[in-house]
């Protein structure tokens, strides 16, 4: 692609509106606020060295994808800010931006470890625990018991 084509493409791209993408902090802070997470929650992430135990898996009925929890911009108290920052430090993978609930945050790292190439469509429409179960079944393994 020549320089001219590149410039034309860039200019054409500027003409269209791009969808607003909230920041990772906004997403995580929204979940912290909505579910009232406390400082123990980031420690749960530390304890999950590998796969989440079966006790953390929700029932089949509760495996629906929760609605979006975050506002366009998050302004939280200092305590909530510290919790959100702690979560962000522990989870560094692209699946986090599709998380909608604390359960999904817990499943974020194991899911990415098992399959880092899930497409955005599946992540947007399916609960992470459901996807994690599917990945485990595909590999013929079971989550460890508590």
């Amino acid at each position: 692609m020549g320089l001219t084509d590149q410039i034309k493409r860039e200019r054409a791209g500027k003409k269209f509106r791009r969808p607003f993408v909230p920041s990772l902090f906004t997403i995580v802070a929204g979940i912290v606020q909505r579910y009232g997470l406390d400082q123990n929650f980031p420690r749960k992430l530390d304890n999950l060295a590998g796969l989440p135990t079966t006790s953390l898996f929700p029932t089949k009925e509760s495996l629906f994808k929760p609605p979006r929890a975050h506002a366009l911009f998050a302004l939280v108290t200092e305590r909530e800010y510290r919790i959100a920052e702690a979560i962000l430090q522990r989870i560094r993978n692209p699946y986090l931006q599709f998380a909608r609930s604390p359960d999904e945050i817990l499943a974020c790292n194991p899911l990415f470890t098992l399959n880092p190439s899930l497409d955005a469509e599946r992540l947007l429409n399916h609960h992470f625990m459901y996807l994690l179960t599917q990945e485990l079944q595909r590999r013929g393994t079971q989550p460890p018991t508590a």
Partner: protein
Amino acid sequence: MIGLLDSQLRVVVHGGFLYLPLLMDPSVKGETELAGGARAVPGNAGGTERGPLLRVRGELYVRSLKVDGLVNCLGMLQPDDAAPIPGELPATPSRTAFCGVSPGSKLTTLVLEVMPHFVRRRTREGGGRPTGKDILEEIRRRFDIPESFPGDTGGQTVVDALTQVREETRRRIEVLRPPADEPIAARELKGWLLEAVRLGFLDDELSRMKSVMADMGRHPWMNDGHRAVLAFLCQRGALEMDGFGFYRHGSADEFIVYVHTGDYALQDFYGRVYRFPDCRVAVTTWGPPRPFVLDRYRHPFLESDGRGQPICFQDSGRWNGEFSAGAVIGGIEGGINALFHGYDRRRRNGYHSLDPLTPYERTIRFEDLRIDRDHPDIRSGRVEIKNLFR
């Protein structure tokens, strides 16, 4: 802000300002870190302050509103809480009732300064201009007003009662005062703010009462009977006597003042006579004292035939003064003079002429007002032709 004072949010009062918990995102966090170290707040055990930020017990607070401003505006922010405060005070004369007793009020100016100008001939035949005292006694005689009128409460009694309530309120404020530099629930702060609003209201009332009492010294001749007349007029809100009148507009100390013109006549280019009925020329005590007619009326100097039309003047910028007895008198007299003597039959000036040159320009007609020059009222002088000067 309205919901804040009913919430359990922890706030801090420091240095006359209300500090709210600082809400954070990464950029705000960056700015607080850029602000650097904090210095200790004198007299505060655990607090540190830096610019608009305050750290108390490990939590960051940001400076928001000034507490004085909050007290001043609480009536608008929390009308449900602040509105009953005046009603809870001891029985005092209301602002409307008391304004008539104050010599500085517009009502008193109208009665004591404007009225003598317009009713002089009928009050004292051949005796010159009556004084304000004469007017008050005349009103008292005509309306049979008792010596003490219910609206006329003793000023000093009211001041004493208000002072006592003020002291009690001040003591309550001291009890409710929030601890300095300590987080408290916003709901607790609200009680203290409402007491501060009450104190401000009491201060206003006291200063008003004191100024009223000081104004009383301007008319040393005024006795209880005279004050009773003013209180009567204040409660009644309207008066008409010998062609002069006024009535209250709204609930404040604002009035519409008017004078009856009586019947009069004008003549046109051909000397034909038109008899104009009585109308009321008025000015308001608010805004510029520009004269207008209160009733439906036709005249060459009025644009149409509706109510409340301003009278046409060549120099409309002359009505820019503020309220004073002179401005009211000048406005009314200017209006009456314009109606009586402003129409020049040769120039046919004004919006309309009594005898237009073409029939097409007639939007307002005056033919029905025409009377014979030998009409008994004209001949006897009961109705005067006002524009005989040319």
